[in-house]
């Protein structure tokens, strides 16, 4: 009896037009035709996002993720936790992005050799081997223009000759022998607010998702501790593996030996139970009259509870009902755009000036004879607030042990809109 081998069998990369442009097999070769089942599902789905992530076929299971308009389709032969595969595929995308700056079809095709080398290192026999970016970068150096030039001249390679030291040490995420002339550590506290605001302007649900992204360039083996003014705010946290969990449990202090370079130290959640201040309000008046071929559209934005910080990079988007043929709107600032095919309205507002609130007013022309839409469109808002974390989280201090020099430290706060929707 042939036991099906576990874990990831093959990987196919499929672009949005349904072509397989890369394939990689870790075990015996699986024919491309297995993707036909995927294409079938793709055809059935109205939107690219609607393709189900897990598709059973007679002999295989297809687990796919969609990132940057590329489907990463993994072929599985037997029972395996689906999240295991999904998480891994996302890690692959993250790595590509890390290596090539962007993860597009063109970038992957241009760097197909590096892609292959990476995939070869990341999985052995379908089981993840090295997924830590620090380790991978020691094994396979990311392509840079300079290195490409040098390589073509000298014939040297992108492949590291040594086993990454991290692979064996107790701190697998950090390589040894790191040296910098300027020792610096930057931390970005970025919070995203997810909210649903109902018609009348009251908050239905709101929660804050925060992350602390770090860029640490420190010599040697620094041991850092980061403490907060108000750690109790953090409702639910997940850490980079470097963070010592015991210390956090006991003292609510982040203690860690950082990886070298960029990494996500922490992500946290401030749930809807705590009252979240919504920094923006929307006044809207969108009406469709029965029988008329005209609809009214009025939108005004204003800041609210922003603690004196300005709203920036405000972008409004809304999917208008199918019945809308075109719009004739007049923005008080910024530019707006309506795509008559997809019915997507977007308005790039820019910065909100509290003295002169931005508005978008005008009329919509509707399909003649069509009945009035049941539902008013939902408005999605994006914005940024610099220098402020909405939850009020504050870093108290950052200390370094284990090394003699004095690093340069920096902390930045930012709030962004996540999935911020206003129902009208």
């Amino acid at each position: 009896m042939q036991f099906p081998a576990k874990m990831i069998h093959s990987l196919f990369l499929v672009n949005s037009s349904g072509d397989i442009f890369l394939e990689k097999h870790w075990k015996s070769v699986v024919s491309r035709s297995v993707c036909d089942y995927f294409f079938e599902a793709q055809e059935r789905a109205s939107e690219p996002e609607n393709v189900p992530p897990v598709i059973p076929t007679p002999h295989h299971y297809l687990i796919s993720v969609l990132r940057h308009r590329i489907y990463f389709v993994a072929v599985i032969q037997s029972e395996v936790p689906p999240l295991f595969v999904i998480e891994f595929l996302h890690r692959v995308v993250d790595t590509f992005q890390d290596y090539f700056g962007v993860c597009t079809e063109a970038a992957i095709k241009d760097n197909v050799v590096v892609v292959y080398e990476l995939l070869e290192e990341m999985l052995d026999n379908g089981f993840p081997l090295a997924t830590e970016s620090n380790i991978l970068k020691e094994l396979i150096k990311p392509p840079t223009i300079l290195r490409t030039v040098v390589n073509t001249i000298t014939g040297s390679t992108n492949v590291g000759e040594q086993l990454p030291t991290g692979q064996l040490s107790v701190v697998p995420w950090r390589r040894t022998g790191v040296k910098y002339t300027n020792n610096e550590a930057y931390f970005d506290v970025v919070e995203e607010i997810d909210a649903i605001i109902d018609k009348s302007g009251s908050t239905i649900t709101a929660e804050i998702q925060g992350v602390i992204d770090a860029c640490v360039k420190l010599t040697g083996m620094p041991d850092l501790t980061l403490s907060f003014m108000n750690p109790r705010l953090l409702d639910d946290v997940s850490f980079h593996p470097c963070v010592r969990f015991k210390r956090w449990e006991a003292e609510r202090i982040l203690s860690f030996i950082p990886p070298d370079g960029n990494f996500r130290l922490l992500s946290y959640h401030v749930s809807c139970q705590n009252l979240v201040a919504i920094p923006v309000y929307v006044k809207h008046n969108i009406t469709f009259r029965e029988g008329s071929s005209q609809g009214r559209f009025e939108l005004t934005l204003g800041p609210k509870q922003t603690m004196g910080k300005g709203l920036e990079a405000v972008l409004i988007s809304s999917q208008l009902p199918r019945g809308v043929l075109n719009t004739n709107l007049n923005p008080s600032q910024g530019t707006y755009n309506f795509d008559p095919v997809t019915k997507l309205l977007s308005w790039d507002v820019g910065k909100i000036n509290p003295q002169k609130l931005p508005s978008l007013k005008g009329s919509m022309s509707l399909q003649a004879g069509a009945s009035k839409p049941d539902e008013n469109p939902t408005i999605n808002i994006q914005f940024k607030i610099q220098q402020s974390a909405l939850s009020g989280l504050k870093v108290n201090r950052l200390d370094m042990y284990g090394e003699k020099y004095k690093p340069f430290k920096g902390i930045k706060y930012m709030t962004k809109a996540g999935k911020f929707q206003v129902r009208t």
Partner: protein
Amino acid sequence: MDEGKKLHVHDKVFLSLPLLISIIKLSTTAILFYDSLAFHNKHFCTLAKRQMLSMSTNNLSYSDQGGTDSAVEVGQETTPTSSNAGAGFGLFSVDFKKNEDLKEMLESNKESLKLEAMKRVVGLIAKGKNASELFPAVVKNVASKNIELKKLVYVYLVRYAEEQQDLALLSISTFQRALKDPNQLIRASALRVLSSIRVPIIVPIMMLAIKEAASDMSPYVRKTSAHAIQKLYSLDQDQKELLIEVIEKLLKDKSTLVAGSVVMAFEEVCPDRIDLIHKNYRKLCNLLVDVEEWGQVVIISMLTRYARTQFTNPWKEEGVFDERNERAFYESDEEKTRDETEAKPYMMDPDHRLLLRNTKPLLQSRNTAVVMSVAQLYWHLAPKNEVSIITKSLVRLLRSHREVQYIVLQNIATMSIQRKGMFEPYMKSFYVRSTDATHIKSLKLEILTSLANEANISTILREFQTYVKSQDKQFAAGTIQAIGRCATNISEVTDTCLNGLVLLLSNRDETVVAESVVVIRKLLQIQPTQHSDIIKHMAQLFDNITVPMARASILWLMGEYCERVPKIAPDVLRKMAKSFTSEEDIVKLQTVNLAAKLYLTNSKQTKLLTQYILNLGKYDQNYDIRDRTRFIRQLIVPNDKNGALSKYAHRILLAPKPAPVLESAYKDRDRYQLGTLSHTINTKASGYLELSDWPAVAPDQSVRNVEVIEPVKEWAPSLGKTGKSKPAKSSDDKFYSDSGEEEEEKGSGSSSSEDGSSSSSEESGSDAESHVQKNSSQSSEESDKSSSQSEKSSSESDSEKKERKTKTPLQKKTVKPTAKDSDSDENGNIAKEANSSSAEESYSDSDSDSESDSDTHTDSDSGTEHKKETKSKAKPKVEVKSTKEVSLLDLGDFTPAPVTQHKSSVLSPSLLGDLEGLSLSNVSSIIQVSGPAFVPEKSHDLLHRMTGKGLSAQYQFPRQPCLYQPTMVSVQISLTNTTDHPLEQIHIGDRSPTGLNMHCFNTIECLEPEASVTVFMGIDFNDSTQAANFQLCCRRKLPLSGLLSLLYPSSSSSPF
């Protein structure tokens, strides 16, 4: 436009300018034409290409290759290889032409050219193009110094080795060499590639490499060997037993790097061998936090299964306390356990607690798969009141990618059906956003419905109202179903929901209306009494509804409750009679039903209508409808034949029908373990391992105890690598003295020595030499040999022995006092004495001998008898050793062949004795500390000569590590023939328990009268105290049943 340029280049020399221009124009227009068409019609496309082809050939017929070249390319393109003809245009021609020069580049001397070529080859592989014809050219570069080139060759090799098995073998020796490289990275990658080459013929080599790598110094290499186990297993399942041994060994590894990989191998090769886990359970629990994240997932899911077989159910009697304990959630863990233990007789196994405690921090992992696997562990293993700690983490995962959301929501859906309380506080996290994907929306809806209760139903219904208006009509329909479910589950809101749904009947969207009708029908069935006005309302809407399912539902309602709407129902039937022929099948069937029911209740008004409809149905195209019509007619229209049946027609058609139960699609998903693929697709995926039920009584807890602190050095000595340190060990000293002296008698015991130990045999050879060098003066000859040991032949080993012989007397004295634990040596020593005193001593005398000698004596006797056998076996071994470097393939069937009796008595090569002794000495440092100074030699009767009809057998435990497998206990058996005729074919027959793992001795072809022979066996008692039973057979009188009912001796603390 490629085309145009190419023409230009080729023709420049030959053509005059105006002509050239005209040609360029022509071909470019052709191409433009072709391009513009490419988007529209493939057929046209090929036409266009043909046209172009003919054009270019016509125009260029007199010119050189330029034209023909392009013609070839274009012609090539017409074969429909790729769907995107436009893009493939240039691509194909490139492949077509360049494969040849790729070969040249690969065979060139320049590294950079080779590298360039390999990069392009990898590009071809990535595109799924066939590059297999380059195999010979590529495989030559496998030994390249350039690491990147080498890696790319590896990529190629792994891809195509299966197809080109013979050629792939050319590369094997390179890997074998690399396996011995001092750089661990190279060793590891060699093993990785070697084991990835799916060529069955190299299975023995892989096996050997895996075994060796499993005891490598570097944990990274050991990790690689754990990966290789799975690969070998999928290549050749017959290796299972041997692989399990390696797994068992690696499971003991303390490195976090290895843990995940070896558990993965365990899961794949022998997931049912839960007994291998016992001893490592606590270690795995403690290491878990530090294992890399992918390993964590695998270990956690394995431990979940393990725990379900080993611990008792923590949920017993908890149902009552459930709600109360829910409050205890915010208290600390320790407190809770104490509570529990005080309140109930249930005591949680400390190991069970250990698992829960050590996995909890992993809920904070950034890896969603880890969080999910901890969540399922808590769901399946934790006491009910502790499960809720996973809620927060699962809700956090909802912020992750769409695909992650999908899986997590599915699992939450299953959980929330069983335990609403867990997720209720987070209800708002499941509110649907307009940007969610459809499958996410429906999952959220599912969960919200499950969470609905009396307290929150109003909030949920208000939220649902928004969803019903959604532009995504499919989602709106789903919401209506969800409202229906809420209405049935929560009786307080049934009326509200029903009214709301009735309002939706006037919705403009058809799918919404249809769905509402269907749901209303179901709701009305549940409480039909007060709702005749709703039925009337629906009858009014009937004309406007076109969705067949909805129409059918209304018709069914009319029929079912026709007595409540006596006036309307016949009218509806009248309308239906009119439109019957143009209806859908499902509607027709319900019309027939309605007609029948009305006929029974109100035949005065509807008799004619019914007959008309039945007539229409009789000639319908659909046979279902014809059948139904025929059946109904016989049932309701009374005639002579069926009088009996029509009496019951009323009761048949208008029987009270049970109301449908509206329930979740996720209701029965909990039969699958959460977080698994099977759970996601709701069917059993291949390779799914059932989660067993809790055992009623907890199995022995002590199996997890690790009594002895394992020697730290356990892993350090690798079979093949510690050779150099050996001479220092005293066991070696005595070993040599023994082998030197007893070469004539000893060695039978190891006649079937370890299969794969050729490397150790090699080592032993070198050791022997170095040792001799140390101790004797005649070193010049020896040093030559040690330098060229790989070429050494068996004859050399003979000469070696002679040398040793010369120095043995000297050594013997020094060794004797220290010869303590290694019994075989001991035996040898004594045997030698015995031998020297009188070689003719009769074997049957053993009883009369001095007791210290009694058993060893038989030993020594056997030697003389057995030496030929030993010899004949030793020889192939030596050969193998000598050829090993050249071709390991010969090792394929290494199991010693059945021995043929050679009468010619030669000096027995003591090599096997050497082997035995040396492989012992690998672990001798341990043996020496643990073993007593002198193990009392006690032999026991296995088979008395009376019961054995002349064949007697005695056994003893030499208390030395078994050679065959570390888990085995070695048993020394002395067989004596007390009859007056030779016994033939003595061998081991059936054994029990059937799974008994034992290493039998080789069949003894012939045992002369009065002769005796000593053999060694290895028996794996599996750490149990069960007796091992086996049959001892010989040809003449078979079978002699022997019962070796000895318990595994606890005092012989085997270091393994």
